[in-house]
């Protein structure tokens, strides 16, 4: 009887490939959600209106992929929570694994999912414009997107990382809930209660948090903020789940 020695990286790699294959259904849910978001975007994601006497006024509508991106972030959040549930844990603890490889391969899977969903989300903005051109009778003021390739790429990258960051929130919350079902109640209470308390102290705190992540004009600082936040969440999740029992 010879015993097989396995290397961590090799197992993580095998598991990541396995998860991309095994969780294919998550991609179909992504497509449905993005199509739905696209439908919502048809009315315009923002309007500016002027009205003057004698005229009906002018309404300027903005068409962008914003709603699709927001929906994709929510999708990333929920997908990550699902990965931590019992049903998915059981699927992966069938084959060679421990908690560390399982977490690492989940993170890789979520990253791959973020790349995929980020790209489709950003590209859906173009699809939206094509739809506007083809089927609606609008007067186009400006149909351009970022003309520069560099800006397009940085937009794409930040979108991908935003989705990844939201999936790290979901992953952490999901893992905490696995620890004890009580957290299903405690987590929302803490989050909502915390936000409420903070906003009583300082009204702009939610806006501040939002602008901390979303209004950073320096691309690299934005990247650092997002990656650090996601990293902290994932590390916490790995730490918490390292003693969880599986296949109950």
């Amino acid at each position, binding site marked *: 009887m010879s015993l097989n020695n396995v290397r961590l990286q090799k197992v993580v790699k095998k598991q990541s490939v396995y998860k991309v*294959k095994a969780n294919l259904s998550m991609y179909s849910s992504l497509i449905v959600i993005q199509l739905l978001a696209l439908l919502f975007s048809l009315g315009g994601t923002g309007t500016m209106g002027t009205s003057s006497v004698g005229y009906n006024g002018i309404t300027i509508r903005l068409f962008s992929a914003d709603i699709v991106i927001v929906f994709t972030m929510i999708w990333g959040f929920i997908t990550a929570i699902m990965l931590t549930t019992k049903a998915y844990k059981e699927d992966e603890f069938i084959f060679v694994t421990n908690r560390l490889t399982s977490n690492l391969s989940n993170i890789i899977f979520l990253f791959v999912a973020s790349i995929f969903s980020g790209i489709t989300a950003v590209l859906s903005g173009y699809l939206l414009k094509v739809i506007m051109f083809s089927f609606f009778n609008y007067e186009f003021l400006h149909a351009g997107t970022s003309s520069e390739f560099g800006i397009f790429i940085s937009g794409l990258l930040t979108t991908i990382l935003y989705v990844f960051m939201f999936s790290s929130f979901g992953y952490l919350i999901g893992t905490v809930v696995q620890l004890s079902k009580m957290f299903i109640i405690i987590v929302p209470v803490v989050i909502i209660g915390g936000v409420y308390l903070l906003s009583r102290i300082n009204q702009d705190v939610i806006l501040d948090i939002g602008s901390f992540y979303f209004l950073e004009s320096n691309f690299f600082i934005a990247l650092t903020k997002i990656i650090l936040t996601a990293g902290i969440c994932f590390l916490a999740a790995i730490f918490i789940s390292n003693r969880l*029992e599986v296949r109950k």
Partner: protein
Amino acid sequence: MNVITCEGLKKNQRKVRALSDLSFTIKENTITGLIGRNGAGKTTLLKILAGFWRESSGEVKVFNQHPFNNLYVSANTIYVDDQMSFPASLTLTEILQEAEVFYENWNGKLAKRLFDYFSFHPEQQHENLSKGKKSTFNMIVGLASRCALTIYDEPTTGMDAAVRKDFYRALLRDYLEYPRTIIISSHHLDEVEDLLEDVLLLQDGSKCLHLPIDELKDYAVGLTGRTEMVRQWIANKEVFHTNNIGAGTTYAVVKKEGIPLDNARQLGMETTSVTSSDICVYLTDQTKGGIDDVFK
């Protein structure tokens, strides 16, 4: 070499003690039967050995390492039961292909031949299989993975008699070809006893017996005779079971060791052998009276 060593293993599940002070060793390349009544702690023990659950106290070593959260143990161990859940998006063939990726000793040829023999449909989903078919498929995964430690927790749940026989035969043949350490937990000792080398009998979370199967078969003897005589004769002996089987006649099962059987026969008692399965039932009898007493 010992594959498994347990020293004072304890496991609590909330306030209930599932395992208490369990100590035993299992040698390399043996087939051990883990026998016990419902709730004796069989599954708890096996899940700790497979590294899924963490022991509460005591020491447990598999391949000389602590199994919980251990990649090395996981790579050389497979745990097969009827609760195995595979991703719904994979077909049966794809599941076997994935298993091949993970287990280095995977025997693809054997898996394919068993798959065809039990006439599985390659495109079928695992969750749509019947209970018996699920067990059969899990058994194929367990056999083909050829892990140094293969754990079957009630592997025959839902299988029909023919498949059960086939399974035991396949298990034995593959074991002879490729020896490894196998643990089978089962309620049906009579079915598996021809396979087993050792029996580990659990009762209420602790070890009741750990013996080679041949010794277990010879462990006890049944005595039938007139009630007063049997009662008197077994008074200072280790009695596992007594039963009134008719007017003035009693059947008693006593430990065979050191029993003067000739003497018993001379006194007019009939001596019979007791099957190992019956011995296990008597040893682990925890019910008060019989089921009939419930309805009194």
